[in-house]
């Protein structure tokens, strides 16, 4: 007997034509008690992440940047100082082995370099990139999420998740289409 392969359900996805409709629907979903959800937009809309419950304090990119910058600064200055004072000391007319003003450019550049790299790679890592597969791409119309449509997905992981009630909730909004997302 041929077995029918079944996929787990990822959630329910609604498509909107305007950012405004998306924001209203997200507010409604949040008000109804759903927490595990995500919105997908072609460009950043700050209000959407606010209503979805992703606040500024949840964003750890600045922290990663700061740590990288501090490490880079300490590292750059230590590198220059150690190289000139212990690894390869050159006594030139008794001048100091660690002339700190001369090390500022290198310290500065290392600060920027490490801060920048930890900012960029930190952002990518926190976003979970690179991520070759994600269930939301199973929704056929999702290709417009990078063009001119706005999507809201309430995920099955949500403790309150119940497919029919989520569908009802989203159908009541201005959604042009509501689809189930296969995992």
């Amino acid at each position, binding site marked *: 007997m041929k077995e029918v392969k079944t996929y787990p359900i990822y959630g329910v996805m609604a498509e909107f034509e305007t950012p405004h409709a998306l924001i209203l629907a997200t507010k409604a979903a949040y008000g109804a008690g759903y927490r595990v959800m995500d919105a997908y937009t072609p*460009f950043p809309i700050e209000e959407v992440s606010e209503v979805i419950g992703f606040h500024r304090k949840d964003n750890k990119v600045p922290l990663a940047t700061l740590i990288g910058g501090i490490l880079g600064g300490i590292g750059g200055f230590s590198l220059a100082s150690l190289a000139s004072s212990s690894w390869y000391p050159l006594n030139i007319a008794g001048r100091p082995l660690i002339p700190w003003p001369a090390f500022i450019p290198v310290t500065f550049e290392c600060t920027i370099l490490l801060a920048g790299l930890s900012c960029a790679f930190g952002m990518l890592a926190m976003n979970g990139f690179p991520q070759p597969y994600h269930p939301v791409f199973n929704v056929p119309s999702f290709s417009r999420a990078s063009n001119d449509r706005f999507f809201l997905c309430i995920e099955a992981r949500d403790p309150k998740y119940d497919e029919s009630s989520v569908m009802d909730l989203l159908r009541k909004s201005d959604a042009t289409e509501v689809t189930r997302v296969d995992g």
Partner: protein
Amino acid sequence: MDARKLDFGQVPIIARGHTFDTVTEKISDIVLKSGTPKWWFGAFLVGGALLTGLLFALTVLVFKGVGIWGNNQPVGWAWDITNFVWWIGIGHAGTLISAILLLLKQEWRTSISRFSEAMTIFAVACAGIFPVFHTGRPWLAYWLFPLPNTMGVWPQFRSPLVWDVFAVSTYATMSIVFWYVGLIPDLGTMRDRAKSTLVKKIYGALSMGWRGSTKHWSRYETACLLLAGLCTPLVVSVHTVVSFDFAVGIIPGWHTTIFPPYFVAGAVYSGFAMVLTLAIPARKLFHLEDFITTRHLDNMAKVMLATGLIVGYAYAFEPFFGIVYSGNKYERFLMYNRMFGPYATFYWLLVLCNVVTPQFLWSRKLRSNTVALFIIAIIVNVGMWLERFVIIAISLTRDFLPSSWGAFKPTIFDIMTFTGTLGLFLTLMLLFLRGLPSIPMFELKAMLHGETAEGHDEVVGLEAEAAV
């Protein structure tokens, strides 16, 4: 769309009547539609030919050594370092547009930002070739970096040349990272719009699986702002450090404290000239007039005028410091030699190119004339190259001891290497224009969205006023 907010008697930043979809379509079609325009192949042929010359010249150099260039005592730094400084300077406008103008909330920067950021990377790539090959043994160029080695030798961290290695390599890395991060969402758009599976896979891999999640956007925007904030002092530091290469030296004409600000202003000046040189034909040939409007060209021309005046001010101050203030006979002779010596033509030509030419930009009429603007930009590019040549090479021809004076004459390999980097730059630019979205689509859409939202507020505001 309501363009009233942006349209205060000026040309809008985005032409009227665009929706999210038309923005995506117009920009991504340049890349995804089959059929490369004929002019592209023509330009690619030119770029490729020059690039071949570069490869040839560098191959000969690797076999024979730097002696094939015109560099010799006393002019040890000549076209190579001139070209290095010139290219690095050109790169600076890209970072200025993408980072500093982002922090200053200059919305008009959006449509030219990615384009100029790409220009930065390609210009830095061209610049990097010169010092690496000037070492004479490019296969040992890694000695510039502080790597533990069996010889127990370390770079001299008190030297501006080592600072330069750190500044330029940091600049190159950060520019690539900033540019790539900026591209990710648009690469996602390209993936979603591509028809062929292979193209879809390539853009899909490059976009890392970007799906526009609002949480991702939130971190993404923070990262972009922070990168812009980091690039802003970086770009100022890079040309400052480049100018230290000279200012810390004791050669008359190099040993000058005004070099850092003077070099940074010159860098921005030449960079904007290069952006205009590229943007004017590109917008015409790819029909991007809707996104790179005359407003952009006008603004860039104004920045060019302003930085041109700063550069002119520095030109006026150099003789003042040299002749009047320093009281140093070597400095005085240097200025005399520059203005009336054997290379005086170059000096007056550079004054003509860099100080006189930009004065035409006071006229609004000329600023809105793309042909005139293109010609002025080319002249400024030439002028800035001459400026670097005059500072670097001509200062070296006659220093303290008349017995050690000399002259500089470029060889065919100097010329081929320089034109070769122009070819490399052109080739990379053409590949970029055809292979990647040259205008940030998501940022333009965010701007459109912002405008409609503002227009909405304005309407509400008017109604409220009427009610009062």
